[in-house]
C-alpha cells in the first residue's frame, strides 16, 4: 500500500477524533502563545464547556432523552470536588456550618475531581433506575422535577453547600492546559463510549425502542449505565468548572445553566460529538461577543441596562435552528476526513 493511501485509511478510521482534537489543541497552543489574558480566559472556559456539553451528549445524544437533571450532577461534582480540595481554614471561614469531618478534609485537586465525578455518579446510580423506565413527556417532567429537587436540596443543605450563599475560596487550578486536557479526555471518552457496545445498544434504543428490545437490548439497563457514566463525566466537568470559576452558588446549577448547555448541544447537533464540540464553540464565542455588546451598550448610557440580550439572542437562534435544522448544524454526522467526501463521490458518479 502506498504511503498516501495508508495515510488515507488511518485518517479515515480515527479522523473524527483527529479533526476535533488537533484544531482544539493547536488553537490552545496558539492562543496561549499569542492571546491576551482575556482571550486565554475565554478559551479555557470554552474547553470547560466542551467537557460539560460532551457529558450531556453522552446520554442525551445517544438515548434521545432530554436530560434536565444533568446540570444537577454538574453541581454535585462541583461541590464535592471543591469541598475536597479547598483549604480547611478557608472552608471554616466560608462555610461556618459545615460538618466537621468534611471541613477537615483537604486533598490534591486531581483526586478531588475524580471524587466529584464518583459522587455524582453514585447519586445518579441511586436515583436513576426507576427514572430510566419512563419515556416521552412523563420522562421529561420527571427529570425536570428531579433537577428541582436537587436544586432545593443544594440550596437548603447549608452544612455542605453553604446554602444559597456563595461558596468561595476554591483554588484556581483550572488553567488553559488543565481545561484543554480535560476537553481532550472528554472527547476521547465520548467517542469511545459512542462506539462501544453499550453506546451502540443505547443508540439502537433511541432509534427504535421496541425494535431494540426485540433483538435483546435491555433498554432500561443501557440507559441506566449510560446515565451514570454521563453523570460521572458531568461531575468531573463540574469540578473542573468549579476550579475555574472559584466561587459559585447552587444558583449556578439550575435552569439558566441547563438551558445554556442544552442550547450548545442542540445548536451543534446532539447526535454527534462533532456537533457538541462545534455547538459549544459557536455558542461560547457568540455569548462572549454579545457580552461585549451588552457592556458597551450599558456603558454608553443610551439604553440603560441591557441584561438578557444574550439570552434573547440565544433563544432566537435556538428556535431558528430547531425550525430549519432540527438535527443541529452538523445534522448528526461526525466530521470525517476528507471533509467533502460525499460531494466528491456524487460528482464522480455523475461523471
Amino acid at each position, binding site marked *: 500500500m502506498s504511503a498516501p493511501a495508508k495515510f488515507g485509511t488511518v485518517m479515515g478510521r480515527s479522523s473524527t477524533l483527529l479533526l476535533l482534537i488537533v484544531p482544539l489543541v493547536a488553537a490552545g497552543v496558539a492562543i496561549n502563545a499569542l492571546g491576551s489574558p482575556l482571550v486565554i480566559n475565554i478559551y479555557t472556559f470554552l474547553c470547560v464547556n466542551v467537557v460539560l456539553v460532551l457529558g450531556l451528549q453522552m446520554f442525551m445524544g445517544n438515548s*434521545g*432523552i*432530554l436530560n434536565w437533571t444533568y446540570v444537577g450532577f454538574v453541581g454535585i461534582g462541583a461541590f464535592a470536588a471543591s469541598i475536597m480540595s479547598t483549604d480547611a481554614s478557608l472552608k471554616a471561614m466560608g462555610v461556618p456550618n459545615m460538618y466537621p469531618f468534611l471541613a477537615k478534609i483537604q486533598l490534591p485537586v486531581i483526586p478531588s475531581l475524580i471524587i466529584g465525578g464518583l459522587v455524582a455518579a453514585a447519586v445518579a446510580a441511586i436515583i436513576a433506575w*426507576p*427514572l430510566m*423506565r*419512563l419515556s*416521552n*413527556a*412523563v420522562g*421529561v*417532567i*420527571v427529570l*425536570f*422535577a*428531579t433537577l*428541582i*429537587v436537587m436544586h*432545593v*436540596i443544594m440550596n*437548603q443543605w447549608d452544612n455542605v453547600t453553604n446554602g444559597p450563599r456563595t461558596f468561595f475560596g476554591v483554588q484556581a487550578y483550572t488553567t488553559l492546559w488543565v481545561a484543554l486536557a480535560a476537553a481532550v479526555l472528554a472527547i476521547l471518552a465520548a467517542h469511545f463510549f459512542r462506539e462501544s457496545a453499550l453506546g451502540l445498544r443505547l443508540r439502537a434504543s433511541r432509534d427504535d425502542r421496541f425494535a431494540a428490545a426485540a433483538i435483546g437490548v435491555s433498554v432500561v439497563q443501557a440507559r441506566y449505565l449510560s446515565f451514570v457514566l454521563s453523570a460521572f463525566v458531568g461531575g468531573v466537568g463540574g469540578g473542573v468548572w468549579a476550579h475555574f470559576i472559584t466561587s459559585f452558588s447552587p444558583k449556578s446549577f439550575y*435552569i439558566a445553566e441547563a*438551558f445554556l448547555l*442544552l*442550547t450548545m448541544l*442542540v445548536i451543534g447537533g446532539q447526535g454527534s460529538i462533532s456537533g457538541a464540540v462545534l455547538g459549544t464553540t459557536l455558542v461560547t464565542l457568540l455569548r462572549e461577543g454579545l457580552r461585549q455588546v451588552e457592556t458597551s451598550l450599558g456603558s454608553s448610557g443610551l439604553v440603560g*441596562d*441591557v*441584561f*438578557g*440580550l444574550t*439570552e*434573547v439572542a*440565544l*433563544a*432566537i437562534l*435556538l*428556535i431558528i435552528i*430547531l*425550525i430549519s435544522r*432540527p438535527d443541529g448544524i452538523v445534522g448528526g454526522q461526525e466530521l470525517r476526513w476528507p471533509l467533502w467526501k460525499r460531494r466528491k463521490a456524487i460528482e464522480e458518479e455523475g461523471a
Partner: protein
Amino acid sequence: MEFVINTISLGSLYALLALGLVFVYGILKLVNFAYGEYVMVGGYALFVMGSMQGVPWWITAIIAVAMAALVSYLTELTAFRPVRTRSLSALFVTSFAVSMLLQNLALILVSPRAKAVQFPPLFNQTVSMFGAVTPMRNLLIIGTAAVLLTGLSLLMKYSVIGIAMRAAAEKFTTTRLMGVPANLMISIAFIISGFLAGVVAIFWVSRSASVDPLTGAAPLLVAFIATVVGGMFSLVGAVAGGFIYGLLFNVLSVFLPASLINYRDAFMFVIVILFLLFKPEGLIRGNYTEERVG
C-alpha cells in the same frame, strides 16, 4: 374553616392553571415550558394598564387576559407550528427556548426588578363567613373558577369546537381525516391555554401585588405537579389534580416542622416523582391516547 376556604380557593386557582397546560398537552403531547410565561405576560399587562390613569379596572383585567391569550397564540404561530412535525424533544426544547425568550424580553423591555401592580381594594377586603375571616380575593377565585369550569365543560361537551377538540385529543389522525383542520384546533388549544393563564395571572399577581420576569416559574411548576398527579390525559384529571395539589400544599405547610418547611418544594416534587413511577397515568385515567402526530 379558614383552612377549608383557603384550600378550596388555592385548589381552584391551581385547577385553572393545570387545565390550561393540559389543553395543549392533550392535542400536541407538548409539555409547554413557556406556559408560566403566559402568566407573566398577563401580570405585566396588569402592571402597564394599572399604571395608566383613568382606566377602569375591569378593562385592565380583560386586556391582561387577552394579552396572555394573544402571546400564547403568537408563540404557537411562530415557534411551535414550524417545529411541530419534528421530534418530541425538539418541541420541548422549543418551548423552553420560548420561555427563556419571553422572560428575558421582560427583563430588557421592563426591568429586572419587581414592579408593583395596583389592585382594587376589593381584593384585599376581608369578609367573615361561617365563622372564618378570609380575604375577598379567595372568594373571587372560587367564584371565577366555578364559572369558568362550568363554561368550559359546557363548551367542550356541546359545541362543535369542543367536540372536535375532545376528538383531537384522543385520536388526532382520525379526527383530521374526518375533516377537522389541525392548525385551527391547535391554535384554539393555545388560545384557551393562554386565556386560562391570563385569568390565573390576575389572582396570582394579586397575592404579592407585584410582577417580575421570574413570576412565571412558580405557576409552571404548580401546573406540572397538578397535571401529573391528576392525569395528563384528561381535563377532569387536571382539575382534580389542581385541587389535590392545593390540599397537599396547605397540609404540608401546616404540618411540616419549621425546620423542614424550606424543603417543601422538594417534598412536593418527590411526591410527583413517586406518583409518576407508580401511577404514570395519574389519578383519573383518560381514554386510550395514541402517540403524538404532527
